[in-house]
């Protein structure tokens, strides 16, 4: 196992925040349980999801599967929208990453569907440092929101994050989460 594997250190070495840091997701079942427990969740997918290959598919394909299985509305950021549409999936919305981040800090915002604020925001596929900063904004200014990253790198500003793990372990974890989130 590589040195950075399974340790909860920020992926970019110097991006050390604190005192409050993300709880480490050690088992994908725990992440699935938290996703299932959320009453109003939202999945924010950045452009890198369409670039990252996980064996025979792209990360974005896993996210579409997850969104469908758990019935999570998706916000595509940057040009990720075109990749969703190419796959025949219509996200709930698309907007810049900083825009959705900003809206999530607003307790008055009723969400994309107007039905009220979200309680869990899942992030994946943004540039590491950009996700880091946006999650920092939410950590400090969205007290009623929990955040989770589904990337394979530790994002210390999330409420929950995987540690730095290999692509193989990542795919395994995502498969478990997708399997577990459906149904009652």
């Amino acid at each position, binding site marked *: 196992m*590589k*040195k*950075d594997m399974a340790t909860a250190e920020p*992926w*970019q*070495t*110097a991006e050390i*925040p*604190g*005192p*409050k840091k993300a709880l480490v997701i050690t088992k994908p079942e725990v992440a699935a349980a938290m996703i299932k427990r959320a009453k109003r969740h939202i999945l924010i997918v*950045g*452009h890198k999801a369409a670039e990252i290959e996980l064996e025979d598919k792209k990360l974005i394909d896993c996210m579409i599967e997850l969104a469908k299985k758990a019935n999570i509305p998706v916000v595509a*950021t*940057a*040009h990720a*929208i*075109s990749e969703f*549409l*190419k796959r025949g999936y219509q996200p709930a*919305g*698309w907007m*810049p*990453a*900083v*825009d959705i*981040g*900003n*809206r999530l*800090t*607003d307790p008055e*915002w009723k969400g994309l569907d107007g039905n009220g604020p979200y309680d869990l925001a899942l992030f994946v596929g*943004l*540039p*590491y*440092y*950009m996700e880091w*900063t*946006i999650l*920092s*904004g939410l*950590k*400090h*200014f969205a*007290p009623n929101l929990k955040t989770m990253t589904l990337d394979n790198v530790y994002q210390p500003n999330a409420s929950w994050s995987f540690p730095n793990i290999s692509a193989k372990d990542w795919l395994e974890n995502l498969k478990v989460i997708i399997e577990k989130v459906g149904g009652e």
Partner: protein
Amino acid sequence: MRVKIGELKTDVGLVKNLELSIGRIVEEKWAEPMGPTPFPSLTALREWDMKLLQRYKPFYMPFCDVCCLCTFGKCDLTGNKRGACGIDMAGQQSRIVLIACCIGAATHIGHARHLVEHLIETFGRRHPLDVGGLNVQVEAPVTRLVCGVKPETLGDLEEVLDYVETQVTHLLSVAHTGQEGSNIDFESKVFHAGMIDQVGMEVADIAQIATYGFPKADPEAPLVDLGFGTINVEKPVILCIGHNVVPSVGIIDYMKENGFDGEIEVCGLCCTAHDITRYYKRGKIVGPISWQLRFIRSGVPDVVVLDEQCIRTDSLYEAQKIKAPVIVASEKNCMGLQNRTNDPADAIVEDLVGGKMPGALILDPEKVGEVAVKVALKVTPLRKKFKVIPEVDEVIQRAKECRQCNDCRRACPQDLHIPEAMKAAAEGTLAKLADLYELCVGCGRCEHACPVGLPVHSFIVKAGEKKLKEETYKVRAGRGAIQDVEIRNVGSPIVLGEIPGVVAFVGCANYPKGGAEVAEMCTEFANRRYIVVTSGCAAMSAGMYKDEEGKVPYETFTGEFAAGGIVNVGSCVANSHIAGAAIKIANIFAKRNLRANYEEIADYILNRVGAVGVAWGAYSQKAASIASGCWRLGIPVVVGPHGTKYRRMLLGRADRGEDWHVYDARTGEKVYVGPAPEHLFYAAETKEEAMVMIAKLCMRPNDTTKGRAIKLTHYIDLHKRLFGTMPEDIHLFVRTIGDIPITMKDEIVRILEEKKWKETVVPDPTLLPRLIRKRKE
């Protein structure tokens, strides 16, 4: 002047010991009446700032969860907790932004002060400020607007500098523990820092244009050489890095006066390079700031001359590796070297050539010129272009030492896949390392992270050597100001929206995916007949691209400030001409009073001038202050994804209809105008997102229906091409049926019906009640 009167008898009485003190006698030559805010204080424009900040609220993204600025600390501010001094997280973040902008503003202003002092000494206080002959009557639009004075000579710039220096001091004092407590007031002061920064930049650039014979608002400024491959390595090479051109001028003058013109290559990195080519047609630009390590390590430079700003602080160390003597020429950057300013030039030359010292501090630009040239001539045959870039065999051999620990990748700001490339190199192929060359920002953090001390950056440069040597481009030398006549020609189509926008690509080179993205964006918008303006490192990146015919964008597009032009204004301090152009549209085209009339002009620009700044690779505090000068003036700024590290955005909320009302100056009615422009400061994740947003941010409430239709055409076209679908928010930008692009009418009308769209009016827009001509009964 001080007047003291011991006793004065008058008809009304006796006055004793009268003492009068007069600071300055102003000879009034400018007929325009003084506006409301000459030499504005920290709070003079606070109401305007509040209007902007009410609409564009800060979204803070703390880069650090604690405050460690005083001995109470560290204080944990997590979750907007308050620290020992009482500050909360929002206040702390805005405070840090203010400090950054003060650093940026002070840097330009300090640069301007040194430059003006030197130029006054050389050319005299009465040297006229001619920056464009009869073509530029409004020579200093920013200074006129902010200060309410019309500088005519170099000496006139001194009082302007006195003012901005005072403001920087006050602004910095605001950041002391136990001063300002409101984040919104910090933000207002951030705007103030940006505004005075624009003044400082303008002072610096008009002073050097007026004295050094730079192109004067010339749309046909010469095309000059850009790129590593343009430099003749057979000659002695003097490399100048930084922003203050004065020492470089000393070098070029000495060369010319002593018959060495053409014998020595003088080239530059960063903004000094721009200004070298504005002064000297044979001068060459190596590239943006991120080329520093690769060029020094290549062994090509024989002497390295450092002035100020954006210089790698390890330049001396790097230059020592290639045995190139260093001359530091600014008191802001002494590098620990011995001050040899008062020593005879030949003695310094002897010590540098003989290797008795690695470099020298010389604070006399003429002496810098003599020493640099003499050292270059003597040291070149001795150095034999000694380099520290390894040969291919060595790269392959040493790559085998790589432990695949990932530390290099985790240190890389771009998260480049270095370990995979090292593995391939160890197996004998450098192709993957070569792929990293164009994405690498040249920071060198990978090397410091490497536990076995591999010179990773040098490996990447070696692998990309072919590309490096083939870098032979052209950039139009910085032209400086925009002509008044150009403003007259484009003022109407810009304000009415028929020229879809003015897009300025500025700033540094911390690009997320290489500089080619800047060239691509410039070309896209020039092809769409926007006016494209460039400056600084972005202007260089815009030129580092060739089309199928082998032409760079500056050869393909005109240098005029006109639809479809790509206009390089020059170095960082030339950014002031971009703000100046927007100001001149309000003044020259719309005939709004300029003098100390900041609020009205900013209101005009926000509502009518579709200008957007793009700092795709912004990294510095100067870039932060330049951006903040744009915000107060109503010009939105787009940064790349690294820009989120500036800690806060200023974002509008398109979904909050109540935020997007203006007064119709004709009636006093409040009118909904849609989110135009939607954001004031915003970081895009990718160039695709940036391009769509740039087109959107060019929309303004004042657009005519024809103009809005043109702008919508570009927005929709880019959105469809890059996002694969129609914009979701199209109904927010259609005010009347006439706004709809004719070729998309059916599709858009259908969307409007689905969205239950209602027609509104196109107002004479303003946020300022005092500009309403007729009050509602």
